[in-house]
């Protein structure tokens, strides 16, 4: 097997695993379909925005939850935003934690909120790692002269 075929196989297998394990859902496919020769970096650009946005929101959440009197409306607003952006890029596991997190906001359950914030940080760092690995594999494939397969 030559290098290109090997890298291609690796990329496909890795991508499939992300879908199987629920890290990504079909929305990520939709993003890839929007990428073409005129917009070759579209997916990376959108995902980078997601990374920036998520990190900001996670920090804001930590701040708000540290307060004496927690403003649950603010907490909910941040989680709602994160839910939206994770849904827009197909980061399914992050999105799902956001949904349960919001229930805790509604119930004004501080313990629950703190627990879900932890879980959110965890899921976010997982998907960030996965996506960065995915992009690296794509780069390696392109550098070897291959093209990214249509999944």
């Amino acid at each position, binding site marked *: 097997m030559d290098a290109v075929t090997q890298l291609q196989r690796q990329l496909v297998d890795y991508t499939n695993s992300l879908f199987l394990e629920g890290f990504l859902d*079909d*929305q990520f496919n*939709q*993003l890839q*379909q*929007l990428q073409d020769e005129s*917009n070759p970096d*579209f997916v990376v*650009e*959108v995902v980078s*925005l*997601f990374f920036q*946005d998520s990190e900001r929101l996670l920090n804001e959440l930590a701040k708000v939850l540290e307060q004496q009197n927690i403003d649950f409306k603010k907490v909910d607003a941040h989680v*709602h*935003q994160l*839910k*939206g*952006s994770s*849904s*827009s*890029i*197909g980061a399914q596991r992050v999105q799902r934690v956001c949904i349960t997190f919001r229930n805790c906001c509604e119930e004004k359950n501080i313990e629950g909120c703190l627990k879900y914030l932890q879980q959110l940080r965890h899921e976010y760092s997982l998907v960030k790692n996965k996506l960065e690995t995915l992009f690296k594999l794509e780069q390696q494939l392109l550098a070897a002269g291959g093209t990214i397969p249509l999944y």
Partner: protein
Amino acid sequence: MGMAATESQFHVLAVDDSLIDRKLIERLLKTSSYQVTTVDSGSKALEFLGLNEDDDQTNPPHIPSVSPNNHHQEVQVNLVITDYCMPGMTGYDLLKKIKESSSLRNIPVVIMSSENVPSRISRCLEEGAEEFFLKPVRLSDLNRLKPHMMKTKVNDHQNFEKLEESEETQFQSPPPKEQQQLQQPPQPQQQEQQQQQPSNNKRKAMEEGLSPDRTRPRYNDIATLV
């Protein structure tokens, strides 16, 4: 009537406070060959449309002025697509303002939301929204935009005053093609004439078929809500 190249393109104004979603909707719209302007708030949208929030609703159609704030008025907008949940002015508020404005009410408005709330959906449709899309919006959703925009294309070539008086608009629509530019002739006279009902939230819109790759329902008519 000389037509510049850009006149044959539909221009969509997309409103969303989320940067990611703005980037997404812009790409979706451009892929569908629409000209796109994105803004991050309802008030900026109204500004772009040339409507001051304080405008008296009984004002006559806006006369283009040389004031720097009004230079946008020359830009035609064929459709507004807006997020529902936005800080300050919600998508619903924006929809209302547009529909209450004598100069803007014929612009079709589409609402997007990440939350599937039937009462929210009916409220928007009742207020005059043409469609309600659940987020994340997909390319296939955008196929439903063209028929709405084609109505405004013909209106642009009519006398503005006539628009004021009659709610009914008559236009012809050539048979739908794939995602290509449709050249609209200046005169509304052509072989295929189709009488269309006035823009009405209660009318049955184009065929609803659930595309094979999705199972979520789409909403554009109150009657179809489950």
